């Protein structure tokens, strides 16, 4: 068995792994990034400008292929005829769930991970979020507060490049923003009306996006083609491939090894430290070890914990570093699929030029200043106002020359959509474990995921529909179509928890610096570390936590504490 030795190992090259690689290499550490999937070449793999007529089913998806090879991944819209290749083959990557309790685990195994297809929404938290667990007695208290993370958010935001509008909200703090795009004519009027009718409590603002409106650190400003989830040849949105991995490469300290499926962490009971990781070559399926002084697990919330569950020793029979018994527990996602669409009566004489990738956000307004009787925590809305153009043709009455002329020469009315994204509570009974009867294509024991939404999330989802309709009614919308879908967790693709941070090694897996209590040279900075998940999209917080954890680890290494 061959062995390689580095200063640092990073497992995974997605949002968190890319940041770990950049920070570790910039601190001068010889770092290997082990990525389970294939390499990505933007010139070849990015497909954002491919037109429907270049695809066999014109973008309607290859349904039969999806049913055969991606029966789980197909549930997410981005797994389509263009970008389906960025999602895993479910046959190679199995997991199980209890009868009647599905969990949609949406994964991307390639260099860049899901940072290639992510939604690019980036929102800071506030102490309303950090203090919620302690205040309400759910899970454990966060070992840090807004002021601990604020400088790190600033640090990563300045590198990422974020389009956003400063609003001065205490519960959704402003970040380091590039100039925002304007709201379109319909959204701007909607903002005005909601400000009047809800006194600023329900606010339409720009979606804060990791997309450039000005050239930034060698990446070009967005060219507004509108299909970011398929890649970006101008590198205008942030991803590991577009930003952090090139920065890491520039240091000369990076080794990136694709097709490297990490099986487990190797633990030395004498030193009580990890010596490295055991890896299965993705192509040859041969095993080899990589050794290093420090290990960053950034393989995604469930994958990183799977690695630890597969690393049991005599001392840690229930997973490496699981003295607390919390490893694998407290799985969370967000809850979505509650909202409404309506037709706006105004701005028919106005149009957009350019396709903004995402449009608007309505920050959380429930349980901010007053307490809601039906549920804890809150939700925000993502949305947009848009004109359908020719796509309205299948629903529009008529046929013939005039019908055709209208589809080409008119755009249809503005449709306003509000879709809620709500917080899910951390619950011990939502957990992952190793399925004793299931292995993946590389022979690595696979997960069994036990996770369901609770009443709190379902009541929140009901409220999303009510408040979305209220906003549309306030705006004078007609043909209001409320919607609520009963999808299983996982589909929001914000899975978190399973190795939570905390103040006490008896009840948490990681300390306040993402460092394992039990194995001090192993850090976890992906979604696994989260004691709660707020309602904001999580990636920018993983980035800030990663940069902060690397600084801490490097400090410890310099003081020879690691």
């Amino acid at each position: 068995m061959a062995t390689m030795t580095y200063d640092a190992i990073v497992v995974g090259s997605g949002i968190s792994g890319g940041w770990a690689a950049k920070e570790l290499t910039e601190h001068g550490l010889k770092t290997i990034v082990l990525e389970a999937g294939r390499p990505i070449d933007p010139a070849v793999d990015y497909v954002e400008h491919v037109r429907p007529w270049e695809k066999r089913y014109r973008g309607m998806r290859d349904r039969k292929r999806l049913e055969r090879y991606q029966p789980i991944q197909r549930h997410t819209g981005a797994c389509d005829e263009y970008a389906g290749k960025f999602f895993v083959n479910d046959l190679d990557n199995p997991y199980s769930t209890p009868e009647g309790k599905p969990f949609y685990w949406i994964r991307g195994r390639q260099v860049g991970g899901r940072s290639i297809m992510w939604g690019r929404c980036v929102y800071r938290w506030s102490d309303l979020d950090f203090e919620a667990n302690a205040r309400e007695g759910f899970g454990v208290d966060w070992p840090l507060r807004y002021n601990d993370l604020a400088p790190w958010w600033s640090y990563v935001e300045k590198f990422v490049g974020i389009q956003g509008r400063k609003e001065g909200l205490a519960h959704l703090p402003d970040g380091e923003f590039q100039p925002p795009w304007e709201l379109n004519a319909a959204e701007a009027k909607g903002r005005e009306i909601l400000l009047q009718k809800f006194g600023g409590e329900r606010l339409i603002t720009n979606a804060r996006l990791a997309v450039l409106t000005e050239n930034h650190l060698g990446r070009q400003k967005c060219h507004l083609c509108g299909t970011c989830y398929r890649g970006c040849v101008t590198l205008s949105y942030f991803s590991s491939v577009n930003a952090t991995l090139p920065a890491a490469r520039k240091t000369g300290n990076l080794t990136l090894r694709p097709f490297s499926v990490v099986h487990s962490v190797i633990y030395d009971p004498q030193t009580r430290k990890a010596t490295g990781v055991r890896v299965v070559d993705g192509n040859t399926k041969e095993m080899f070890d990589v050794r290093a002084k420090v290990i960053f697990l950034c393989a995604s919330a469930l994958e990183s914990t799977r690695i630890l569950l597969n690393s049991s020793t005599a001392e840690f029979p229930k997973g490496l570093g699981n003295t607390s018994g919390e490893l694998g527990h407290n799985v969370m996602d967000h809850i979505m699929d509650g909202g409404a669409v309506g037709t706006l009566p105004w701005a028919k004489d106005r149009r957009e030029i350019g396709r903004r990738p995402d449009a608007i956000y309505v920050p959380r307004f429930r349980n901010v200043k007053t307490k809601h009787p039906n549920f804890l925590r809150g939700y925000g809305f993502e949305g947009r106002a848009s004109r359908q153009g020719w796509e309205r043709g299948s629903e529009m009455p008529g046929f013939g020359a005039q019908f055709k002329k209208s589809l080409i020469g008119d755009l249809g009315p503005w449709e306003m959509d509000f879709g809620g994204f709500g917080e899910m509570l951390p619950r011990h009974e939502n957990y992952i474990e190793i399925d004793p009867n299931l292995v993946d294509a590389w022979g690595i024991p696979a997960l069994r995921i036990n996770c369901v939404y609770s009443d709190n999330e379902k009541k929140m989802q009901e409220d999303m529909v009510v408040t979305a309709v209220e906003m549309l009614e306030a705006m004078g919308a007609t043909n209001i179509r409320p919607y609520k879908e009963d999808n299983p967790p996982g589909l929001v693709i914000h899975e978190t928890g399973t190795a939570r941070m905390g103040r006490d090694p008896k009840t948490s897996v990681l300390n306040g610096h993402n460092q394992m209590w039990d194995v001090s040279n192993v850090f976890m900075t992906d979604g696994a570390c989260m004691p709660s998940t707020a309602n904001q999209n999580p990636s920018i917080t993983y980035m800030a936590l990663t940069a902060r954890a690397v600084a801490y680890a490097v400090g410890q290494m310099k003081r020879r504490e690691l």
Partner: protein
Amino acid sequence: MRRREAVQFLGAALALPFIPRSAETAIKLGEALHLRLADVPFRTLNRDQQALVTNIAEMIIPETDTPGATAVKVPEFIDLILTEWASDEERAPFLAGLTDIEKRAGTMGAPRFVDLPAAKKVELLTALDAARDDKSGAGLAFARLKALTVYGYFTSQAVDVDVLKTQMFFNGYQGNVPFTPAV
């Protein structure tokens, strides 16, 4: 069920001329088969159904100063979707609905829809357009046909490039640009 029909169809069109004796011959034969497949756009719709679908698609989006549905091969696209994409549960009611359209044409005094005088065709399609929410029959078939015609037309290369003139690069976003519909 559909797979068998497709095989029968291919069997008729592509009867093997000889049995390949080497890998190279097999590859060449495969390529020849592939080429001939490309010449066979209709695998689900029979000749009468092709004529019906083509006639209706062209009536939904006729040729004007820009191409119509037939010119950009919408009927072929519809057949592709019916053959490879639709489930049996989607395809069967659609084809049954086409038969219902022909029956409706029969009650209007013609053996087939395509034989109706232009005014009668418009009358029938107007009635079907009002019945687009029907769960089966002629209304359902027309609704599907209309959706596929619109989609197939506007996602075709000719329309995307020459009619819509779709742009992929914009120098900045503008959200409040004056607009006058050209209708």
